[in-house]
Protein backbone atom coordinates (compact mmCIF):
# COMPACT_ATOMS: atom_id res chain seq x y z
CA UNK A 1 0.00 0.00 0.00
CA UNK A 2 2.80 2.32 0.86
CA UNK A 3 4.47 1.64 -2.46
CA UNK A 4 1.44 2.67 -4.48
CA UNK A 5 1.22 6.10 -2.86
CA UNK A 6 2.52 8.95 -5.01
CA UNK A 7 6.05 10.15 -4.23
CA UNK A 8 6.59 13.10 -1.89
CA UNK A 9 7.48 15.26 -4.87
CA UNK A 10 3.96 15.01 -6.18
CA UNK A 11 2.57 16.15 -2.84
CA UNK A 12 5.05 18.99 -2.77
CA UNK A 13 3.97 20.14 -6.20
CA UNK A 14 0.33 19.99 -5.21
CA UNK A 15 0.92 21.92 -2.01
CA UNK A 16 3.15 24.44 -3.77
CA UNK A 17 0.44 25.06 -6.35
CA UNK A 18 -2.25 25.40 -3.70
CA UNK A 19 -0.06 27.79 -1.73
CA UNK A 20 0.58 29.91 -4.79
CA UNK A 21 -3.11 29.94 -5.66
CA UNK A 22 -3.88 31.10 -2.13
CA UNK A 23 -1.26 33.82 -2.19
CA UNK A 24 -2.36 35.06 -5.60
CA UNK A 25 -5.95 34.90 -4.39
CA UNK A 26 -5.14 37.29 -1.55
CA UNK A 27 -3.46 39.64 -3.99
CA UNK A 28 -6.16 39.74 -6.66
CA UNK A 29 -9.49 39.15 -4.92
CA UNK A 30 -11.39 42.11 -3.57
CA UNK A 31 -14.04 40.28 -1.60
CA UNK A 32 -12.91 39.85 1.96
CA UNK A 33 -14.60 36.45 2.26
CA UNK A 34 -12.69 35.18 -0.72
CA UNK A 35 -9.50 36.54 0.78
CA UNK A 36 -10.26 34.56 3.92
CA UNK A 37 -10.79 31.45 1.84
CA UNK A 38 -7.51 32.04 0.04
CA UNK A 39 -5.75 32.21 3.38
CA UNK A 40 -7.35 28.92 4.39
CA UNK A 41 -6.06 27.48 1.15
CA UNK A 42 -2.53 28.48 2.04
CA UNK A 43 -2.81 26.87 5.44
CA UNK A 44 -4.13 23.69 3.91
CA UNK A 45 -1.24 23.61 1.48
CA UNK A 46 0.98 23.57 4.52
CA UNK A 47 -1.05 20.72 5.99
CA UNK A 48 -0.57 18.63 2.86
CA UNK A 49 3.14 19.22 3.11
CA UNK A 50 3.29 18.27 6.75
CA UNK A 51 1.28 15.11 6.31
CA UNK A 52 3.26 14.06 3.26
CA UNK A 53 6.56 14.57 5.03
CA UNK A 54 5.27 12.87 8.13
CA UNK A 55 4.30 9.89 6.01
CA UNK A 56 7.64 9.71 4.29
CA UNK A 57 9.69 10.20 7.40
CA UNK A 58 7.52 7.86 9.43
CA UNK A 59 7.33 10.44 12.22
CA UNK A 60 4.07 11.49 13.80
CA UNK A 61 5.23 14.96 14.66
CA UNK A 62 4.06 16.41 11.37
CA UNK A 63 0.57 15.04 11.70
CA UNK A 64 0.20 16.30 15.22
CA UNK A 65 1.33 19.68 14.04
CA UNK A 66 -1.27 19.52 11.28
CA UNK A 67 -3.99 19.19 13.88
CA UNK A 68 -2.68 22.26 15.59
CA UNK A 69 -2.65 24.13 12.31
CA UNK A 70 -6.25 23.15 11.62
CA UNK A 71 -7.24 24.36 15.06
CA UNK A 72 -5.47 27.64 14.59
CA UNK A 73 -7.05 28.01 11.16
CA UNK A 74 -10.46 27.70 12.78
CA UNK A 75 -9.58 30.39 15.27
CA UNK A 76 -8.26 32.56 12.50
CA UNK A 77 -11.46 32.14 10.51
CA UNK A 78 -13.49 33.18 13.54
CA UNK A 79 -11.45 36.30 14.12
CA UNK A 80 -11.45 37.04 10.39
CA UNK A 81 -15.21 36.78 10.14
CA UNK A 82 -15.64 38.98 13.19
CA UNK A 83 -13.51 41.63 11.56
CA UNK A 84 -15.47 41.27 8.33
CA UNK A 85 -18.72 41.83 10.21
CA UNK A 86 -17.32 44.90 11.89
CA UNK A 87 -16.11 46.21 8.56
CA UNK A 88 -19.53 45.64 7.04
CA UNK A 89 -21.29 47.37 9.92
CA UNK A 90 -19.20 50.50 9.42
CA UNK A 91 -18.81 50.58 5.66
CA UNK A 92 -21.67 48.45 4.32
CA UNK A 93 -19.20 46.67 2.10
CA UNK A 94 -16.65 43.91 2.41
CA UNK A 95 -14.63 45.02 -0.58
CA UNK A 96 -11.09 45.43 0.73
CA UNK A 97 -10.34 48.13 -1.85
CA UNK A 98 -12.81 50.39 -0.09
CA UNK A 99 -10.82 50.32 3.12
CA UNK A 100 -7.90 52.65 2.44
CA UNK A 101 -8.30 55.49 4.86
CA UNK A 102 -4.91 54.69 6.32
CA UNK A 103 -2.14 55.33 3.85
CA UNK A 104 1.07 57.26 3.25
Amino acid at each position, binding site marked *: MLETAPSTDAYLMLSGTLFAVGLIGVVIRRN*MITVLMAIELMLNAVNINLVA*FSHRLGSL*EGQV*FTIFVITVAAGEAAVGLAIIIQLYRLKSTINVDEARMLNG
Partner: protein
Amino acid sequence: MSLNDLIFLLPEIILATGASLLLIAPVTGLRDSISAKWAMIALLIITAGSLLACSWAVPGMEQTAGFARMFALDAFSIFFKLLFLFVVAIVVLLSDDFLRESRYSTWEYYSLLGFALCGMMFMASGVHLATIYIGLELLSLSSYILAGYYKNEQKSTEAAMKYFVLGAVSSAILLYGISLIYGVCGTLNLLDIARALSTVVSNDALMFGVILLACGLCFKIAAAPFHVWTPDVYEGAPTPITAFLSTGSKAAAFAIFVRIFYVALPGFHLDWSMVLATVAALSMIVGNLAAITQESVKRLLAYSSIAHAGYVLMGIVAMNVMGLRGVLVYSFVYVFANLGIWSIVLMMKRHEYAGEKVSDFEGLHSRSPFWAFSMFVFLLSLGGIPPTAGFIGKYFLFYAAVQAGFGWLAIIAVLMSAVSMFYYLRIVVAMYLRDGKEADVTASGALKFVAAVCVVATIVFGVVPNDLIDQVSSSAKGLHNKGAVTRNATR
Protein backbone atom coordinates in the same frame (compact mmCIF):
# COMPACT_ATOMS: atom_id res chain seq x y z
CA MET B 1 5.37 13.91 29.96
CA SER B 2 5.05 13.70 33.67
CA LEU B 3 3.27 15.78 36.22
CA ASN B 4 6.62 17.35 37.02
CA ASP B 5 6.59 18.96 33.63
CA LEU B 6 3.66 21.06 34.71
CA ILE B 7 6.00 23.17 36.78
CA PHE B 8 7.50 24.48 33.55
CA LEU B 9 4.13 25.70 32.49
CA LEU B 10 2.78 26.88 35.81
CA PRO B 11 3.04 30.61 35.08
CA GLU B 12 1.34 30.18 31.72
CA ILE B 13 -1.37 28.00 33.23
CA ILE B 14 -2.06 30.59 35.88
CA LEU B 15 -2.10 33.34 33.32
CA ALA B 16 -4.38 31.51 30.88
CA THR B 17 -6.78 30.58 33.68
CA GLY B 18 -6.75 34.12 34.95
CA ALA B 19 -7.37 35.54 31.50
CA SER B 20 -10.31 33.18 31.03
CA LEU B 21 -11.73 34.24 34.36
CA LEU B 22 -11.41 37.87 33.33
CA LEU B 23 -13.42 37.03 30.26
CA ILE B 24 -16.32 35.58 32.23
CA ALA B 25 -16.08 37.89 35.23
CA PRO B 26 -18.67 40.41 33.96
CA VAL B 27 -21.27 37.61 34.24
CA THR B 28 -21.03 37.95 38.01
CA GLY B 29 -22.07 41.56 37.77
CA LEU B 30 -18.65 43.13 38.14
CA ARG B 31 -18.57 45.62 35.34
CA ASP B 32 -16.54 48.64 36.36
CA SER B 33 -13.21 49.25 34.73
CA ILE B 34 -11.36 49.97 37.96
CA SER B 35 -11.77 46.49 39.35
CA ALA B 36 -10.88 45.02 35.97
CA LYS B 37 -7.64 46.94 36.03
CA TRP B 38 -6.75 45.79 39.50
CA ALA B 39 -7.72 42.22 38.70
CA MET B 40 -5.42 42.33 35.68
CA ILE B 41 -2.56 43.80 37.65
CA ALA B 42 -3.02 41.21 40.36
CA LEU B 43 -2.96 38.51 37.71
CA LEU B 44 0.26 39.88 36.27
CA ILE B 45 1.89 40.01 39.68
CA ILE B 46 0.86 36.45 40.49
CA THR B 47 2.18 35.28 37.14
CA ALA B 48 5.46 37.05 37.65
CA GLY B 49 5.77 35.59 41.13
CA SER B 50 5.04 32.07 39.94
CA LEU B 51 7.50 32.53 37.09
CA LEU B 52 10.27 33.45 39.49
CA ALA B 53 9.32 30.61 41.82
CA CYS B 54 9.27 28.08 38.99
CA SER B 55 12.55 29.22 37.56
CA TRP B 56 14.04 28.81 40.98
CA ALA B 57 12.45 25.40 41.45
CA VAL B 58 13.56 24.00 38.11
CA PRO B 59 17.15 22.89 38.56
CA GLY B 60 19.80 23.30 35.90
CA MET B 61 17.68 25.66 33.94
CA GLU B 62 19.97 25.97 30.96
CA GLN B 63 19.61 22.38 29.93
CA THR B 64 16.12 21.42 30.86
CA ALA B 65 13.23 21.48 28.51
CA GLY B 66 9.92 20.10 29.61
CA PHE B 67 7.09 18.49 27.69
CA ALA B 68 9.19 16.25 25.49
CA ARG B 69 11.68 19.04 24.95
CA MET B 70 9.15 21.44 23.58
CA PHE B 71 9.25 24.03 26.30
CA ALA B 72 12.30 25.52 27.97
CA LEU B 73 12.46 27.51 31.14
CA ASP B 74 15.96 28.82 30.62
CA ALA B 75 17.49 32.16 31.54
CA PHE B 76 16.82 33.46 28.06
CA SER B 77 13.10 32.83 28.26
CA ILE B 78 12.86 34.20 31.79
CA PHE B 79 14.53 37.41 30.69
CA PHE B 80 12.00 37.90 27.93
CA LYS B 81 9.03 36.77 29.98
CA LEU B 82 9.77 39.30 32.68
CA LEU B 83 10.17 41.94 30.01
CA PHE B 84 6.79 40.98 28.51
CA LEU B 85 5.13 41.06 31.90
CA PHE B 86 6.52 44.52 32.44
CA VAL B 87 5.34 45.69 29.04
CA VAL B 88 1.85 44.40 29.58
CA ALA B 89 1.68 45.91 33.04
CA ILE B 90 2.65 49.27 31.54
CA VAL B 91 0.13 48.84 28.75
CA VAL B 92 -2.54 48.21 31.36
CA LEU B 93 -1.63 51.51 32.99
CA LEU B 94 -1.65 53.27 29.64
CA SER B 95 -5.03 51.81 28.75
CA ASP B 96 -6.77 53.15 31.79
CA ASP B 97 -7.94 56.49 30.43
CA PHE B 98 -8.72 55.17 27.01
CA LEU B 99 -10.98 52.45 28.36
CA ARG B 100 -12.78 54.78 30.74
CA GLU B 101 -13.54 57.23 27.98
CA SER B 102 -14.44 54.80 25.24
CA ARG B 103 -16.77 52.60 27.31
CA TYR B 104 -15.82 49.49 25.43
CA SER B 105 -15.73 46.33 27.46
CA THR B 106 -12.81 46.56 29.87
CA TRP B 107 -12.80 42.97 30.99
CA GLU B 108 -12.58 41.54 27.51
CA TYR B 109 -9.82 43.95 26.71
CA TYR B 110 -7.69 42.84 29.61
CA SER B 111 -8.52 39.24 28.95
CA LEU B 112 -7.27 39.55 25.38
CA LEU B 113 -4.16 41.28 26.62
CA GLY B 114 -3.67 38.37 29.00
CA PHE B 115 -3.96 35.85 26.19
CA ALA B 116 -1.58 37.83 24.06
CA LEU B 117 0.89 37.83 26.93
CA CYS B 118 0.43 34.09 27.29
CA GLY B 119 1.26 33.66 23.61
CA MET B 120 4.36 35.78 24.02
CA MET B 121 5.49 33.72 26.97
CA PHE B 122 5.09 30.58 24.92
CA MET B 123 7.14 32.14 22.17
CA ALA B 124 9.94 32.98 24.58
CA SER B 125 10.00 29.43 25.93
CA GLY B 126 9.40 27.50 22.74
CA VAL B 127 12.27 25.29 21.67
CA HIS B 128 10.05 23.44 19.23
CA LEU B 129 8.61 25.00 16.11
CA ALA B 130 5.11 23.85 17.04
CA THR B 131 5.27 25.56 20.43
CA ILE B 132 6.63 28.69 18.84
CA TYR B 133 3.92 28.69 16.19
CA ILE B 134 1.11 28.22 18.67
CA GLY B 135 2.45 31.02 20.83
CA LEU B 136 2.79 33.26 17.82
CA GLU B 137 -0.77 32.61 16.69
CA LEU B 138 -2.16 33.17 20.16
CA LEU B 139 -0.41 36.52 20.22
CA SER B 140 -1.45 37.40 16.68
CA LEU B 141 -5.13 36.50 17.02
CA SER B 142 -5.40 38.52 20.22
CA SER B 143 -3.59 41.44 18.61
CA TYR B 144 -5.90 41.47 15.57
CA ILE B 145 -8.86 41.93 17.84
CA LEU B 146 -7.13 44.48 20.03
CA ALA B 147 -6.09 46.51 16.98
CA GLY B 148 -9.75 46.76 16.05
CA TYR B 149 -10.91 47.57 19.54
CA TYR B 150 -12.36 50.94 18.58
CA LYS B 151 -15.32 49.08 17.19
CA ASN B 152 -17.05 52.19 15.93
CA GLU B 153 -14.04 53.76 14.30
CA GLN B 154 -13.43 53.03 10.65
CA LYS B 155 -9.69 53.55 11.05
CA SER B 156 -9.42 51.03 13.81
CA THR B 157 -11.46 48.42 11.97
CA GLU B 158 -9.46 48.98 8.84
CA ALA B 159 -6.25 48.53 10.81
CA ALA B 160 -7.56 45.26 12.22
CA MET B 161 -8.55 44.07 8.75
CA LYS B 162 -5.14 44.86 7.26
CA TYR B 163 -3.31 43.40 10.19
CA PHE B 164 -5.41 40.28 10.00
CA VAL B 165 -5.07 39.66 6.25
CA LEU B 166 -1.36 40.33 6.10
CA GLY B 167 -0.67 38.62 9.40
CA ALA B 168 -2.51 35.50 8.31
CA VAL B 169 -0.68 35.45 4.98
CA SER B 170 2.65 35.88 6.70
CA SER B 171 2.00 33.13 9.19
CA ALA B 172 1.02 30.87 6.29
CA ILE B 173 4.36 31.74 4.68
CA LEU B 174 6.13 31.02 7.93
CA LEU B 175 4.31 27.71 8.27
CA TYR B 176 5.23 26.70 4.78
CA GLY B 177 8.83 27.34 5.65
CA ILE B 178 8.45 25.25 8.79
CA SER B 179 6.95 22.41 6.79
CA LEU B 180 9.90 22.41 4.39
CA ILE B 181 12.39 22.43 7.24
CA TYR B 182 10.47 19.57 8.79
CA GLY B 183 10.71 17.70 5.52
CA VAL B 184 14.46 18.06 5.36
CA CYS B 185 15.27 17.51 9.00
CA GLY B 186 12.51 15.19 10.07
CA THR B 187 11.96 17.05 13.29
CA LEU B 188 10.52 20.28 14.62
CA ASN B 189 12.69 20.49 17.71
CA LEU B 190 15.25 23.28 17.35
CA LEU B 191 18.14 21.35 18.85
CA ASP B 192 17.37 18.30 16.77
CA ILE B 193 17.16 20.47 13.69
CA ALA B 194 20.61 21.81 14.43
CA ARG B 195 21.89 18.29 14.92
CA ALA B 196 20.25 17.03 11.73
CA LEU B 197 21.58 19.97 9.76
CA SER B 198 25.13 19.35 10.88
CA THR B 199 25.20 16.39 8.48
CA VAL B 200 23.18 17.99 5.69
CA VAL B 201 24.66 20.01 2.88
CA SER B 202 22.77 23.07 1.80
CA ASN B 203 19.93 22.26 -0.59
CA ASP B 204 17.14 24.21 -2.21
CA ALA B 205 14.30 22.76 -0.18
CA LEU B 206 16.05 23.63 3.05
CA MET B 207 17.03 27.09 1.87
CA PHE B 208 13.49 27.82 0.68
CA GLY B 209 12.27 26.69 4.06
CA VAL B 210 14.69 28.94 5.89
CA ILE B 211 13.92 31.90 3.67
CA LEU B 212 10.16 31.47 4.00
CA LEU B 213 10.55 31.14 7.75
CA ALA B 214 12.72 34.27 7.82
CA CYS B 215 10.19 36.18 5.69
CA GLY B 216 7.38 35.23 8.04
CA LEU B 217 9.42 36.34 11.04
CA CYS B 218 10.47 39.56 9.31
CA PHE B 219 6.80 40.38 8.92
CA LYS B 220 6.31 40.01 12.66
CA ILE B 221 9.20 42.27 13.54
CA ALA B 222 8.15 44.71 10.78
CA ALA B 223 11.29 44.60 8.69
CA ALA B 224 11.32 45.88 5.13
CA PRO B 225 10.08 44.79 2.61
CA PHE B 226 7.54 43.05 4.88
CA HIS B 227 6.84 46.21 6.84
CA VAL B 228 3.94 47.63 4.86
CA TRP B 229 1.32 46.88 7.47
CA THR B 230 3.15 48.68 10.26
CA PRO B 231 2.31 52.34 9.68
CA ASP B 232 -1.33 51.69 8.90
CA VAL B 233 -1.89 49.38 11.84
CA TYR B 234 0.03 51.59 14.27
CA GLU B 235 -1.98 54.58 13.19
CA GLY B 236 -5.37 52.93 13.25
CA ALA B 237 -5.06 50.91 16.43
CA PRO B 238 -5.90 52.47 19.80
CA THR B 239 -2.71 54.11 21.09
CA PRO B 240 -2.16 51.76 24.07
CA ILE B 241 -2.37 48.85 21.66
CA THR B 242 0.06 50.55 19.34
CA ALA B 243 2.38 50.81 22.31
CA PHE B 244 1.89 47.12 22.94
CA LEU B 245 2.49 46.14 19.32
CA SER B 246 5.60 48.25 18.98
CA THR B 247 7.23 46.95 22.14
CA GLY B 248 5.88 43.67 23.52
CA SER B 249 4.82 41.94 20.38
CA LYS B 250 7.97 43.04 18.62
CA ALA B 251 10.24 41.89 21.42
CA ALA B 252 8.50 38.50 21.37
CA ALA B 253 9.16 38.20 17.66
CA PHE B 254 12.81 39.04 18.30
CA ALA B 255 12.95 36.35 20.94
CA ILE B 256 11.84 33.62 18.55
CA PHE B 257 13.93 35.06 15.75
CA VAL B 258 17.01 34.77 17.93
CA ARG B 259 16.08 31.39 19.28
CA ILE B 260 15.46 29.86 15.87
CA PHE B 261 18.46 31.30 14.10
CA TYR B 262 20.97 30.96 16.91
CA VAL B 263 19.94 27.52 18.06
CA ALA B 264 18.67 25.75 14.96
CA LEU B 265 20.34 27.36 11.99
CA PRO B 266 23.83 28.56 12.91
CA GLY B 267 25.34 25.98 10.55
CA PHE B 268 23.90 27.74 7.54
CA HIS B 269 24.86 31.19 8.68
CA LEU B 270 26.70 31.93 5.45
CA ASP B 271 23.63 31.11 3.40
CA TRP B 272 21.05 33.20 5.20
CA SER B 273 23.17 35.99 6.62
CA MET B 274 23.33 37.91 3.34
CA VAL B 275 19.56 37.82 2.93
CA LEU B 276 18.98 39.02 6.47
CA ALA B 277 21.70 41.64 6.09
CA THR B 278 19.87 42.95 3.04
CA VAL B 279 16.62 43.01 4.98
CA ALA B 280 18.33 44.85 7.82
CA ALA B 281 19.83 47.45 5.50
CA LEU B 282 16.56 47.89 3.66
CA SER B 283 14.63 48.30 6.91
CA MET B 284 16.98 50.96 8.19
CA ILE B 285 16.87 52.88 4.94
CA VAL B 286 13.14 52.59 4.29
CA GLY B 287 12.13 53.19 7.88
CA ASN B 288 14.28 56.22 8.46
CA LEU B 289 13.69 57.88 5.12
CA ALA B 290 9.95 57.36 5.16
CA ALA B 291 9.67 58.71 8.69
CA ILE B 292 11.06 62.08 7.66
CA THR B 293 7.99 63.28 5.83
CA GLN B 294 5.39 62.01 8.28
CA GLU B 295 3.05 64.39 10.02
CA SER B 296 1.42 61.88 12.33
CA VAL B 297 3.47 60.97 15.36
CA LYS B 298 2.08 57.45 15.31
CA ARG B 299 3.11 56.90 11.72
CA LEU B 300 6.47 58.52 12.36
CA LEU B 301 7.10 56.16 15.22
CA ALA B 302 5.86 53.25 13.14
CA TYR B 303 8.47 53.97 10.51
CA SER B 304 11.08 54.50 13.16
CA SER B 305 10.16 51.12 14.61
CA ILE B 306 10.79 49.61 11.18
CA ALA B 307 14.24 51.14 11.28
CA HIS B 308 14.81 49.78 14.76
CA ALA B 309 13.88 46.32 13.55
CA GLY B 310 16.69 46.76 11.05
CA TYR B 311 19.16 47.64 13.79
CA VAL B 312 18.19 44.61 15.83
CA LEU B 313 18.44 42.33 12.81
CA MET B 314 22.11 43.29 12.62
CA GLY B 315 22.61 41.44 15.88
CA ILE B 316 21.10 38.31 14.35
CA VAL B 317 23.08 38.69 11.15
CA ALA B 318 26.31 39.12 13.10
CA MET B 319 25.80 35.76 14.83
CA ASN B 320 28.30 36.39 17.61
CA VAL B 321 28.21 36.93 21.34
CA MET B 322 28.02 40.69 21.01
CA GLY B 323 25.18 40.40 18.53
CA LEU B 324 23.17 38.14 20.75
CA ARG B 325 23.67 40.37 23.75
CA GLY B 326 22.93 43.35 21.57
CA VAL B 327 19.54 41.98 20.57
CA LEU B 328 18.62 41.46 24.20
CA VAL B 329 19.94 44.79 25.39
CA TYR B 330 18.30 46.61 22.54
CA SER B 331 14.92 44.94 23.01
CA PHE B 332 15.15 45.92 26.63
CA VAL B 333 16.11 49.56 26.30
CA TYR B 334 13.87 50.06 23.29
CA VAL B 335 10.90 49.02 25.39
CA PHE B 336 11.52 51.80 27.89
CA ALA B 337 12.09 54.55 25.37
CA ASN B 338 9.11 53.53 23.31
CA LEU B 339 6.64 53.03 26.14
CA GLY B 340 7.75 56.37 27.51
CA ILE B 341 7.02 58.06 24.22
CA TRP B 342 3.62 56.45 24.00
CA SER B 343 2.78 57.59 27.49
CA ILE B 344 3.61 61.16 26.48
CA VAL B 345 1.60 60.81 23.27
CA LEU B 346 -1.33 59.65 25.39
CA MET B 347 -0.94 62.65 27.63
CA MET B 348 -1.29 64.90 24.62
CA LYS B 349 -4.41 63.12 23.56
CA ARG B 350 -7.75 64.74 24.04
CA HIS B 351 -10.21 62.51 22.22
CA GLU B 352 -10.03 59.42 20.05
CA TYR B 353 -7.30 60.31 17.55
CA ALA B 354 -6.40 63.87 18.47
CA GLY B 355 -2.99 64.76 19.80
CA GLU B 356 -1.21 62.57 17.34
CA LYS B 357 0.23 65.12 14.97
CA VAL B 358 3.75 66.46 15.31
CA SER B 359 2.25 69.92 15.49
CA ASP B 360 0.28 68.92 18.57
CA PHE B 361 3.58 68.86 20.44
CA GLU B 362 4.22 72.53 19.80
CA GLY B 363 5.06 74.43 22.91
CA LEU B 364 4.95 71.39 25.17
CA HIS B 365 8.01 72.73 26.89
CA SER B 366 6.27 75.81 28.17
CA ARG B 367 3.19 73.84 29.15
CA SER B 368 4.88 71.07 31.08
CA PRO B 369 8.67 71.19 31.07
CA PHE B 370 9.21 67.88 32.77
CA TRP B 371 7.22 65.87 30.24
CA ALA B 372 8.87 67.72 27.41
CA PHE B 373 12.21 66.82 28.93
CA SER B 374 11.14 63.19 29.27
CA MET B 375 10.09 63.10 25.64
CA PHE B 376 13.44 64.61 24.76
CA VAL B 377 15.27 61.88 26.64
CA PHE B 378 13.22 59.16 24.95
CA LEU B 379 13.92 60.60 21.54
CA LEU B 380 17.62 60.83 22.30
CA SER B 381 17.55 57.23 23.38
CA LEU B 382 15.90 56.17 20.15
CA GLY B 383 18.46 58.22 18.27
CA GLY B 384 21.26 56.52 20.18
CA ILE B 385 22.82 59.57 21.78
CA PRO B 386 24.92 58.86 24.88
CA PRO B 387 24.48 58.69 27.78
CA THR B 388 20.95 57.41 27.24
CA ALA B 389 20.25 53.69 27.22
CA GLY B 390 19.68 53.64 23.48
CA PHE B 391 23.36 54.33 22.92
CA ILE B 392 24.38 51.20 24.77
CA GLY B 393 21.99 49.07 22.73
CA LYS B 394 23.10 50.56 19.46
CA TYR B 395 26.70 50.29 20.50
CA PHE B 396 26.41 46.54 21.02
CA LEU B 397 24.62 45.93 17.75
CA PHE B 398 26.84 48.12 15.60
CA TYR B 399 29.95 46.76 17.15
CA ALA B 400 28.72 43.20 16.65
CA ALA B 401 28.28 43.91 12.96
CA VAL B 402 31.79 45.36 12.66
CA GLN B 403 33.19 42.41 14.53
CA ALA B 404 31.44 39.91 12.30
CA GLY B 405 32.83 41.55 9.19
CA PHE B 406 29.63 43.34 8.21
CA GLY B 407 31.31 46.71 8.19
CA TRP B 408 29.16 48.00 5.35
CA LEU B 409 26.04 47.22 7.34
CA ALA B 410 27.40 49.08 10.34
CA ILE B 411 28.19 52.06 8.13
CA ILE B 412 24.63 52.14 6.80
CA ALA B 413 23.34 51.77 10.33
CA VAL B 414 25.37 54.66 11.73
CA LEU B 415 24.54 56.90 8.79
CA MET B 416 20.88 56.07 9.04
CA SER B 417 20.80 56.73 12.74
CA ALA B 418 22.21 60.14 11.86
CA VAL B 419 19.26 60.58 9.51
CA SER B 420 16.91 59.42 12.23
CA MET B 421 17.91 62.35 14.44
CA PHE B 422 16.50 64.55 11.74
CA TYR B 423 12.92 63.51 12.36
CA TYR B 424 13.29 63.00 16.09
CA LEU B 425 14.47 66.59 16.21
CA ARG B 426 11.31 67.67 14.43
CA ILE B 427 9.42 66.71 17.56
CA VAL B 428 12.05 68.37 19.74
CA VAL B 429 11.83 71.55 17.68
CA ALA B 430 8.05 71.47 18.00
CA MET B 431 8.28 71.01 21.76
CA TYR B 432 11.05 73.43 22.61
CA LEU B 433 11.28 75.96 19.87
CA ARG B 434 7.72 76.72 18.90
CA ASP B 435 4.83 78.36 20.60
CA GLY B 436 1.90 76.10 21.03
CA LYS B 437 -1.75 76.35 21.66
CA GLU B 438 -2.29 76.90 25.34
CA ALA B 439 -4.03 73.64 26.01
CA ASP B 440 -3.28 71.76 29.18
CA VAL B 441 -1.71 68.39 29.24
CA THR B 442 -4.26 66.02 30.72
CA ALA B 443 -2.07 63.52 32.42
CA SER B 444 -3.51 60.94 34.73
CA GLY B 445 -1.41 59.60 37.56
CA ALA B 446 -0.85 56.32 35.75
CA LEU B 447 0.57 58.05 32.68
CA LYS B 448 2.82 60.22 34.78
CA PHE B 449 4.03 57.16 36.63
CA VAL B 450 4.82 55.33 33.41
CA ALA B 451 6.65 58.26 31.89
CA ALA B 452 8.65 58.83 35.05
CA VAL B 453 9.62 55.16 35.33
CA CYS B 454 10.67 55.07 31.71
CA VAL B 455 12.70 58.25 31.85
CA VAL B 456 14.55 57.09 34.94
CA ALA B 457 15.20 53.69 33.39
CA THR B 458 16.37 55.24 30.13
CA ILE B 459 18.91 57.36 31.91
CA VAL B 460 19.98 54.80 34.51
CA PHE B 461 20.52 52.01 32.00
CA GLY B 462 22.51 54.43 29.91
CA VAL B 463 24.79 55.62 32.67
CA VAL B 464 25.26 52.41 34.63
CA PRO B 465 24.34 49.61 32.25
CA ASN B 466 26.57 46.96 33.77
CA ASP B 467 23.89 45.16 35.74
CA LEU B 468 21.76 44.94 32.65
CA ILE B 469 24.68 43.69 30.59
CA ASP B 470 25.58 41.06 33.18
CA GLN B 471 21.98 39.92 33.28
CA VAL B 472 21.81 39.79 29.52
CA SER B 473 25.09 37.92 29.28
CA SER B 474 23.94 35.21 31.62
CA SER B 475 20.57 35.04 29.88
CA ALA B 476 22.19 34.68 26.50
CA LYS B 477 24.89 32.29 27.55
CA GLY B 478 23.03 29.01 27.10
CA LEU B 479 21.81 29.98 23.70
CA HIS B 480 25.04 30.88 22.10
CA ASN B 481 27.18 28.06 23.40
CA LYS B 482 24.90 25.53 21.82
CA GLY B 483 24.98 27.51 18.64
CA ALA B 484 28.74 27.65 18.63
CA VAL B 485 29.03 23.90 19.04
CA THR B 486 26.82 23.05 16.11
CA ARG B 487 28.46 25.71 14.05
CA ASN B 488 31.88 24.23 14.54
CA ALA B 489 30.52 20.84 13.65
CA THR B 490 29.43 22.03 10.24
CA ARG B 491 32.65 23.69 9.26
